[in-house]
């Protein structure tokens, strides 16, 4: 097992296009780190650089205590699981898993022991004689993971391993990957653009955008305290509601912002570094918005669309004068809410976030 350290890692495919723009990251021994980000942001590229499949243009990559920049992929102590599975089609499942050990010259008994053990962990012992084309997608993915396990790597690298599976299988495999990590306690780096996978699997999430790390942190920390607008909008489903606003006042530990039509909202953040009157963005998660009850004051709004999901109700509401439609996540018992209803919304001040003109979040005060 080993830690992985990235220092100022950069990657350019051509002289003028830099895909990874300087990444610094410390991944601890045994940690499960998930890279998330939109398509094309460079997640795979970074993973492939760690794997040794792509040259590092600039910067240092340490695996364990050793500089790994110029070490061959097979000597880095890593194993990689590809999105496409990349099984050798002409070899049986057994031979697929044994291939790396055979190349390394391990003796037959040792190979057999390791393959059988990996097959047991993944429950594919009955498939060992088959060729990949006789397997289902889920089984192929298990074989691909098995091929990584037999190498007993110091670091596992996964590039969107579940994205070709259907929803229920994806859920199963996600749980199993979690268990696998708990059992093996090996460092794992996992790339996905699925934020649910990121939230559920990760010890720490690294959010990327356009080749730059946006934020690093534990899933909950990142969900509750996104560092900037990108992270705020990326994690969570439905997305956090982001509304353009104007900062009108900074009290001790409280920011007051004004939405169009003179609606004011208070948020428990420290906005003292901004000047009153500057443009800001108000952020409220759908599950934090409440409907006002009798007597409460609230922002008047109209229901645009209601989705009953059984356990929860998703309402999309419109505040007059505000362009964006807001998503509101309500408990399942709001069954008689319907399109066209007039409601009043409450944004609790302890859960509202405010972002400055550059998109950086103000610190919460509670």
């Amino acid at each position, binding site marked *: 097992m080993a830690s992985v350290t990235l220092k100022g890692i950069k990657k350019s495919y051509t002289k003028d296009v830099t895909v990874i723009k300087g990444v610094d990251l410390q991944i601890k021994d045994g940690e499960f780190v998930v890279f998330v980000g939109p398509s094309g942001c460079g997640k795979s590229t970074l993973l*492939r650089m760690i*794997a*040794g*499949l792509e040259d590092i243009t600039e910067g240092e990559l340490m695996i364990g205590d050793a500089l790994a920049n110029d070490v061959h*992929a*097979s*000597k880095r102590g*890593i*194993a*990689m699981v*590809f*999105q*496409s*599975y*990349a*099984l*050798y*089609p*002409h070899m049986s499942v057994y031979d697929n898993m044994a*291939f*790396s050990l055979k*190349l*390394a010259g391990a003796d037959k008994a040792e190979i057999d022991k390791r393959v059988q053990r990996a097959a047991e962990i993944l429950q594919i012992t009955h498939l060992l004689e088959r*060729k*990949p*084309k*006789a*397997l289902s*997608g889920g089984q*192929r993915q298990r074989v691909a993971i098995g*091929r990584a396990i037999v*190498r007993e790597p110091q670091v596992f690298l996964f590039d969107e391993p579940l994205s*070709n599976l259907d929803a229920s299988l994806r859920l199963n495999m996600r749980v199993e990957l979690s268990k696998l990590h708990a059992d093996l306690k090996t460092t794992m780096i996992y790339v996905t653009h699925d934020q649910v996978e990121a939230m559920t699997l990760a010890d720490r999430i690294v959010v990327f955008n356009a080749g730059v790390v946006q934020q690093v942190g534990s899933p909950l920390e990142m969900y509750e305290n996104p560092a900037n607008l990108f992270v705020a909008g990326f994690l969570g489903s439905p997305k956090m509601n982001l509304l353009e606003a104007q900062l009108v006042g900074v009290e001790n530990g409280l920011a007051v912002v004004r939405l169009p039509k003179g609606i004011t909202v208070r948020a428990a953040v420290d906005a003292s570094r901004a000047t009153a009157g500057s443009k800001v963005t108000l952020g409220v998660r759908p599950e934090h918005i409440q409907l006002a009850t009798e007597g409460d004051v609230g922002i008047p709004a109209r229901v645009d669309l209601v989705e009953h999901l059984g356990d929860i109700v998703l309402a999309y509401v419109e505040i007059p004068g505000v362009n964006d439609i807001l998503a509101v996540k309500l408990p399942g018992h709001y069954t008689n809410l319907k399109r066209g209803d007039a409601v009043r919304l409450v944004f609790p001040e302890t859960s509202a976030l405010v972002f400055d003109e550059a998109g950086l979040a103000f610190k919460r005060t509670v």
Partner: protein
Amino acid sequence: MAMGRNSRRIMGLTGHYAGLIAFAIFTAFPLWWAASVGLSTNPENMYSFPRSFWPTEPGLLWFAKVFTDMPFLTYLKNSTIMAVMTVVGVVIVSVLAGYPLARLKFVGSKTIFVIIILTMMLPSEVAMIPNFITMKHLHLINEYLGATVINFSAAFGIFLMKQAFEMVPQDLIDAARVDGATEMQILWRIMVPVSAPSIAALGIFTLVNAWNDYLWPSIILTSREKLPLAVGVFNDLTGPFATSDSMVMAAIVMTVIPVLVFFAFTQRYFVSGMDGAVK
């Protein structure tokens, strides 16, 4: 309605089969005619049309004479040796040249490929005199190797293997690289097996060409006991001392049969080698 759909289906199938059968007859007809003449122990109808399309007094007389009146088995052996040498040579050269052209990045790879393809535009006869002189200096006149080596480096084969290797998913190569395979191991243990259908196609194509090669072997092979079938049959059975046209037909049929047998046995390698690799 069901009837309507069924009869439409049957008509469609009938159309398909009619087309295919017509095509099969069209291509197989010359061979059929040759076989019919060769099987006629009585050659009197050989030139009567269309009576010669089926045998007169069928028998294997002329086929037997092919073995007794000329060294057929010697020619067959020579053809086999030379065809196998050519197939092996072409496959090795094509694989070794196709892989870097398809997969390795190096300066000038595109130019090299274009030059290789340009050689396809030249008629092979252009190269005969230089090749003959080269073979003479290599002391390969009247050798099997001399009769075949000039065909080893086939632009078509290199092109075919380059295309095949380009089809192999990058992930498969990366997986092998992570697993610790060297470039050569990736080539022989991953790329080649995965490209088996293309290699089989190249092999059969090359075999047929080598089997039917006439001009170059007839130039470079000087002794009768080294001649392949195409040259031997032609030399022995045609020309001023020709004995019988019936025997020519029997010999031709016998010449074609080994290729057909080989074809029948290798057909199964044409199934896709990439099934199950990715996704």
